[in-house]
């Protein structure tokens, strides 16, 4: 009798894959039936484009894939394809995003619903494959919506939701999905993609209000204006669109649960916060490590919890204030820096702090900066919680900004 391997039938019950973050997003782009994709290589986001190019070459779906000459061209291609009425996808990392800055700004201020992935990476110089948030943070002020995924599954879900939110006529803004470089881009986890049919209703075809297409008559887009004439009014349109996006995001995640099944709280995810004295606030993949550290320290009697922002723009200020209402002291897990800013803290920290200025409790706040791409470990998050705990005991923050992964003196 020959040896045979019996495959248990139960494996096929749920269609789960083990995918990296880049592959998961590529699958979402395919499900969304994107029309125009513009690619240019830079680590760590590149894998998405590799996957998409293979999918189109194999006939898995149809799209125009443009191999651009630069990130600037990449984002310009997506912007103009979107103006015609195509659903578009683009992305970059680190200095690639910096190179495309001009095109990225005009896409938002021209209100074109391009969806892009930012695979977070440290800015040069020196060249560095490590993870920092400063590349995405270059675009915090111009009207891009930014959601921040914690794992490949959420990256896939956020991509589909991004199209729905961006293309809604109450919004019409471009949308970044930020994924932490390496920690999500290159890490494989189980992912369950939705069936294409379930997404068809959730995500109707993109219908721009004024397509740049002779079939719809002449339109003049982004013409030069006299600032005195409509300058402030035009900016206000973008401001109102970002405000409107809050409601649209909430609707979209509700509908996503209805059609696809997975459930998320739209803006904020809280863990162990019910009775927490100490809260760590963060975004992205390392939130998991922070949660692990909080659980460990609870064994030692420190009541720590973790708050994760799922959106950075629009910034969920109300939800964050509410989540932190009972916290006695707060630490911010910050992969950004803002050289020369108030207290030489991070850009993320400064957003959290300005949010809490309006809070009744005004708890002590400490910033933990993980700059330069050296990967933190659970030990760093435990140390962070202990530093925050110390401030509740002394009732004051002796040092606002800590660089925990730094070797040598934290000057």
């Amino acid at each position, binding site marked *: 009798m020959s040896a045979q391997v019996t495959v248990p039938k139960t494996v096929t019950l749920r269609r789960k894959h083990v995918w990296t973050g880049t592959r998961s997003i590529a699958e979402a782009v395919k499900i969304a*039936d994107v*029309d*125009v994709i*513009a690619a240019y290589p830079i680590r760590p986001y590149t894998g998405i484009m590799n996957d998409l190019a293979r999918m189109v070459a194999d006939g898995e779906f*149809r*799209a*125009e894939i*443009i191999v*651009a*000459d*630069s990130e*600037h*061209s*990449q984002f*310009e*291609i*997506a*912007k*103009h*394809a*979107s*103006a*015609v*009425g*195509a659903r*578009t996808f683009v992305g970059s990392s680190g200095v690639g995003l910096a190179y495309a800055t*001009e*095109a990225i700004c*005009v896409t938002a201020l021209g209100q074109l619903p391009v969806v892009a992935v930012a695979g977070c990476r440290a800015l040069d110089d020196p060249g560095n494959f490590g993870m920092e948030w400063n590349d995405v943070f270059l675009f915090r002020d111009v009207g891009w919506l930014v959601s921040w995924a914690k794992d490949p599954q959420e990256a896939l879900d956020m991509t589909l939701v991004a199209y729905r939110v961006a293309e809604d006529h109450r919004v019409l803004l471009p949308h970044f999905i930020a994924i932490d470089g390496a920690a999500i881009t290159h890490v494989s986890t189980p992912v369950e993609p939705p069936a294409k049919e379930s997404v068809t209703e959730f995500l109707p*075809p993109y219908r721009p209000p004024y397509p*740049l*297409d*002779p*079939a*719809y*008559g*002449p*339109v*003049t*887009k*982004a*013409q*030069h*204006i*006299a600032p005195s*004439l*409509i300058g402030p009014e035009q900016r206000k349109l973008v401001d109102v669109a970002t405000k409107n996006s809050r409601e649209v995001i909430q609707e979209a995640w509700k509908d996503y649960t209805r059609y696809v099944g997975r459930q998320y709280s739209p803006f904020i995810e809280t863990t162990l916060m019910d009775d927490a004295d100490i809260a760590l606030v963060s975004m992205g993949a390392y939130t998991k490590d922070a949660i692990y550290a909080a659980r460990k320290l609870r064994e030692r009697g420190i009541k720590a919890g973790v708050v994760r922002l799922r959106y950075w723009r629009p910034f969920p200020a109300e939800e964050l204030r509410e989540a932190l209402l009972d916290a006695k002291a707060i630490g911010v897990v910050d992969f950004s820096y803002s050289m020369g800013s108030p207290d030489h803290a991070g850009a993320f920290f400064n957003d959290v702090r300005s949010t809490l200025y309006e809070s009744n409790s005004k708890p002590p706040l400490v910033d933990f900066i993980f700059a330069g791409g050296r990967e933190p470990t659970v030990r760093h998050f435990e140390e962070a919680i202990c530093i925050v705990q110390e401030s509740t005991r002394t009732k004051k923050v002796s040092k606002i900004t800590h660089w925990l992964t730094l070797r040598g003196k934290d000057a």
Partner: protein
Amino acid sequence: MSSPIKSVRDVPAIDYYTSGRRTCAGCGPAITYRLLSKAAGANTVFLGPTSCMYVANGHQYLTSPYAVPWSHTQLGGGGAAGVGTAAAFRALMTKGKRKNEDINVIVYGGDGGFADIGFAGLSMAMGYDYKRLLFVLNDNESYANTGIQASSTTPWGATTTFTPSGKVKKIGNIRLKKNVALTMAAHPGVKYVATSTMHPPLDFMNKVRKALDAGGPSFIEVLTPCPKGWFFDPKHTVNFAKLALDTRAWVSWEYADGEFSLTYKPGKITPVKEYLKLQGRFAHLTEKQIDEIQRMIDEEWKYWEEMNQEKRIILPWISAPIPAVAALP
């Protein structure tokens, strides 16, 4: 496919680039825009990288001269804008999301936009296979919109605000004019490349039609005299086009299906001095320097004639001009 225009009487009456703009009197780029719109017709999308043809065509009263869809693109975004727009139409048509039809995508950029900051993007576009995708460079030989600064197509010896004629450095611009159209012809995928100007009157319009019908990306560089930047009386704009050809300061040619031909040969060659002396930007040049320009034109012209004879492109090579800065004592 569109037919060639045989006489001025056959020129389409409808303009898709009309009133509602505030370009200078005698603006060369505006005149060629109008001709371009006539030749291309209604089923056209225009894209405009930042230039005079952006800032002067809209602005103060929220008016727009465009009777077809038009969008701005960033100064260096011309190539990408054309590709993105053409890609969107092809994707929507092949996926059945839009009716299938011929749509012209025309990017009308300046020399700053195409010869300098957007050169790489334009080159990228030339590698693709989008039909009816045309790039028109309106070459007024400077960044005119920002107050006349030198670009890489500014001719040798011209003064601009970045290359003034000074007490020590008298010459003005020391770079030789880049031949953008030849660099575009070096792209194997490009179907049609030409240069033109406003003279003879039908030349540019017919080249536009040929380019759109060529079956792939195409490029036309059109010399557009600029009264403001060249310092001449606005009534002379069109005369300058003819004078540029007759002095051979500008050479009109086309490269179609791998074959080169001169499309204008002056009946009687006019000395370049006649062209230079009417322009304030060359007013500082000495007789010796004008002779030097004449020498360079004569040297280069031999190559153009040879190309015309051989029907293929040969890179013109001219010996270096006299030093721009006098040797210090």
